[in-house]
């Protein structure tokens, strides 16, 4: 499945209206906001159609998966939007992640747990906000983050430490940028190590750079750690490759529509996350050229003055 899908679910007392844009969407938040009610209504509509009294409007079939037979159920569902409530203990399992990985379904998962086996975006974590008796989805983390929407992260002087999620090209780029400057760049060697690296460097002025497209499972504990601390800034672009693609290093080579309407181009059965899509797109676009990109080792051309500045220019309000 690809693209953005508008969903309206309603009965006589409640109405939900929202868009699903990626293969994995997380719903969390306070109790009694209607998360379980939403899943139950979708299931009732699937079982009994309009006779249920529930109306579901969507260009894709909406299904619910639950219980011990989840694998069997899932193996028979294609090209659908699958909703799963929080009371299913298979959610954190590797088996479930494997099932999601090559699936042409989209998944909407109700959970407060960080699902470390699933690469979901910090942009696709929502709470349900009620407005009178009607409800709509809102992005939980937008009110905390300074990165997205109207609140980009701001760091007006150099950090003392930059913690980078990547250990390969992304790290090599930012490490190269730091040469001759008075801050150090550390590779966390994976998103799950960022939390402990922040603790290890507490007290310092820290800039954390991680791939927002797959950082969803980590963002809760990291946000709780840095919340209220203006000496720690989180920069969560989609990925390092997205930063490169968004820069004017390529100017004419890039189809800007891919960056502006990414969901229309990412086939969920092919790419587990947008981070992987952007990596592949960058590799394909630069193949056999002097800009040939490899995730494992940074092509030094990206550190040439013009290219380095072009990539850094995509990072607004942060000085490194």
């Amino acid at each position, binding site marked *: 499945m690809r693209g953005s899908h508008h969903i309206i679910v309603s009965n006589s*007392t409640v109405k939900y209206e929202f868009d699903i844009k990626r293969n994995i969407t997380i719903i969390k938040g306070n*109790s*009694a906001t209607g998360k379980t009610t939403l899943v139950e209504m979708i299931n009732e509509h699937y079982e009994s159609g309009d006779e249920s009294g529930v109306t579901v409007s969507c260009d894709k079939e909406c299904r619910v998966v639950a219980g011990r037979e989840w694998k069997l159920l899932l193996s028979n569902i294609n090209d659908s939007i699958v909703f799963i409530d929080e009371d299913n203990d298979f959610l954190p399992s590797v088996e479930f992640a494997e099932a999601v990985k090559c699936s042409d379904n989209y998944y909407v998962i109700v959970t407060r747990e*960080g699902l470390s086996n699933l690469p979901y975006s910090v942009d696709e974590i929502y709470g349900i906000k009620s407005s009178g008796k009607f409800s709509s989805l809102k992005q939980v983390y937008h009110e905390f983050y300074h990165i997205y929407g109207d609140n980009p992260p701001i760091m007006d002087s150099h950090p003392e430490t930059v913690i980078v999620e990547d250990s390969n090209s992304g790290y090599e780029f930012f490490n190269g940028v730091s040469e001759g400057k008075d801050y150090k760049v550390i590779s966390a060697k994976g998103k799950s190590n960022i939390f402990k690296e922040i603790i290890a460097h507490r007290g310092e002025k820290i800039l954390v750079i991680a791939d927002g497209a797959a950082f969803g499972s980590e963002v809760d504990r990291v946000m709780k750690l840095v919340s209220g601390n203006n000496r720690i800034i989180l920069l969560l672009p989609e990925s390092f490759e997205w930063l490169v693609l968004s820069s004017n290093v390529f100017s004419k080579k890039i189809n800007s529509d891919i960056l502006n309407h990414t969901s229309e181009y990412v086939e969920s059965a092919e790419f587990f996350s947008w981070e992987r899509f952007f990596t592949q797109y960058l590799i394909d676009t630069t193949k056999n050229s002097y800009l040939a990109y490899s995730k494992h080792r940074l092509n030094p051309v990206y550190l040439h003055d013009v290219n380095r500045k072009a990539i850094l220019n995509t990072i607004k309000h942060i000085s490194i």
Partner: protein
Amino acid sequence: MVSVYFGDMHGVIYNPARYFKNTYTDEWIVDDFCKEMIKDVDKSEVIGPRIIDSPVLGGITPRELSGGVKTLICMYKCPDKVFNASACGDNCAKWILEIGKRKDIMINLRHIMDFGSGEFNIKVLNTDQVVNNMEELIPIAGQFVR
């Protein structure tokens, strides 16, 4: 006191809502403390043991209460059991602390619940430490859950 085990735990009741559905009694619902929790978390008024007035859903039975408040009631009424408290949103946190003032309870958390900006006493079973605020809790809990 509230004791918390962070992360995957054997023997925990992972789905407290289901446990509630199959064990609750009329007496649980009309208990003054439970009524207070229902009023605060679900914004709903207990009219009688089998009817509750919800501002969103209208007249409901206890089975239609939120998963969070069902979990709170289970914790309060069955302190010998360990419930998955990640079925509760942050708006339930103050009630978990309140239950802990009345009874010794053990809960299982699979995420870092926000217990607010005040002081509290929570025993973290993973490290056998007592923490008194979120600043102390987060670095410890974050070692075990995301």
